[in-house]
């Protein structure tokens, strides 16, 4: 008979990922078919743009770099391990990841302060936005904490987390190693599943329709008048 911890691990690491991914797929498609014009992250740049830049830009570039690292380690873990086979190269990769992680952390913190601080922005922030921003902040914080407290993540992600994630893809979850992870690594993983789960219900859908030139085009001012549905 599994212990309470074993049962919880089974639910969080063996069942939750499937619930999250299937919800993500079904609701994302349904929302795109039914409400295509809601596929956006309503800009608040027009309402306040002094604090906007450092919140937004630091967070997005930080997350893009770190997330790309996770994706590469998922698809080609052997590349990451080959790169890390010299300690100096491992250290360069880990310090780079920490730099972008910290940029994300500073960015999301500034974005939260701005949403609290600026009355106009606060008014257009829905409950779902607050949930998203809280989950993102926790995700980034736990990621940075894990990077510092449990190095070297790029190597052990490729050796331990990647086989676990592929066991999920193969519909034969192997939870043996993941159940022995330190609690902050577990929290980071579970929170990631929650983000995937809530993705299609929130402004995170903009990730699916982001025009790539956003990354390098000149900034532009956006204005909108409509009070979003569900805004406080």
């Amino acid at each position, binding site marked *: 008979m599994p212990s309470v911890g074993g049962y919880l691990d089974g639910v969080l690491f063996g069942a939750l990922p499937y619930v999250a991914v299937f919800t993500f797929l079904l609701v994302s498609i349904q929302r795109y078919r039914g409400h295509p014009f809601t596929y956006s992250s309503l800009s608040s740049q027009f309402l306040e743009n002094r604090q906007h830049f450092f919140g937004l830009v630091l967070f997005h570039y930080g997350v893009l770099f770190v997330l790309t690292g996770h994706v590469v380690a998922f698809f080609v873990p052997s590349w990451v391990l080959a790169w890390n086979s010299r300690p100096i190269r491992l250290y360069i990769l880990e310090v780079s990841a920490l730099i972008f992680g*910290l940029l994300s952390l500073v960015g999301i913190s500034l974005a939260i302060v701005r949403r609290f601080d600026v009355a106009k922005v606060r008014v257009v922030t829905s409950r779902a936005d607050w949930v998203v921003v809280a989950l993102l902040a926790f995700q980034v914080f736990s990621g940075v904490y894990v990077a510092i407290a449990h190095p070297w993540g790029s190597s052990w992600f*490729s050796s331990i987390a990647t086989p676990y994630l592929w066991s999920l893809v193969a519909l034969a979850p192997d939870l043996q190693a993941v159940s022995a992870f330190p609690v902050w690594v577990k929290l980071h993983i579970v929170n990631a599943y929650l983000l995937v789960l809530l993705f299609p219900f929130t402004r995170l859908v903009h990730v699916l329709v982001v025009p790539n030139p956003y990354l390098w085009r*000149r900034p532009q001012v956006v204005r909108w008048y409509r009070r979003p549905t569900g805004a406080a």
Partner: protein
Amino acid sequence: MTRARPTTCLSIVMCLLVGAATATAQDAAQYFRQNCASCHTIGGGRLTGPDLAGVAGRRDRPWLTRYLIDPKAVIDSGDPYAKQLLDEAGGVVMPTPPGMSAALAESLLALIDAESALPRSQFAGRQVSDRPFGPADVAAGDALFTGRTRLAGGGPPCLSCHSVGGVGALGGGKLGPDLTLVYERLNGRKGLGAWLSAPATPTMQTVFRQTRLADADLEPLLAFFEDAARRRAEADAVAPLTFFLLGLGGAALGAVVMDLTWLHRLRSVRRRLVDAVTSRGTR
């Protein structure tokens, strides 16, 4: 809707139980390799725990089953033989074997009986040479530990998750325990060699299930750990701080670079208009 008859349900349950028991018997050797061989041999001498050859002659079946199911409870009960085992193991309490049940204990004891009767059991343990290790062995082990030489079995380098005092500019990993004194903790070459050949923790088992440590890699690693335990180098306490400060400095630099990159970004058309009007004064 038809309801399943109780006898049918009972038959299915019985089939499952019998099937499970058969599978357990077949899996006993696999279980022993994964969970017991890191500390015990059958006929190969003592490791952290005693040699289990002929264990059935030392205690009776019920006692052995009780001990297998919960070693700590038997020790705590004040049993003198359990106390003696604990003393011989240098105070290391045998961990409760994962998923242990009376049925599994029975199949393990049957396996140990059968293996004890063989001239050489498959669990007699690896033979590790007694020759003194030299600097070349230590260097080869260092290369394996840090990843400069790939493990022949294909496993990831130890540095990914473990540290040893004095290794690397920013130290080793911290997902797993520090291994500076692991050579002493596991009673030297034989104990550590057995552990590395059949690691007993869930993480190591998962990682090395498909990428078992090759025989050729064992001795260099033992040499490296023996040397580490002899040097007893302290882990660099400043390394984590250096790592954090490098990250922080890089992040500050990154923010400045981004600010400079978009120096001429629009800082709001409206604000410029307002500022212009304000500086002119209203007419």
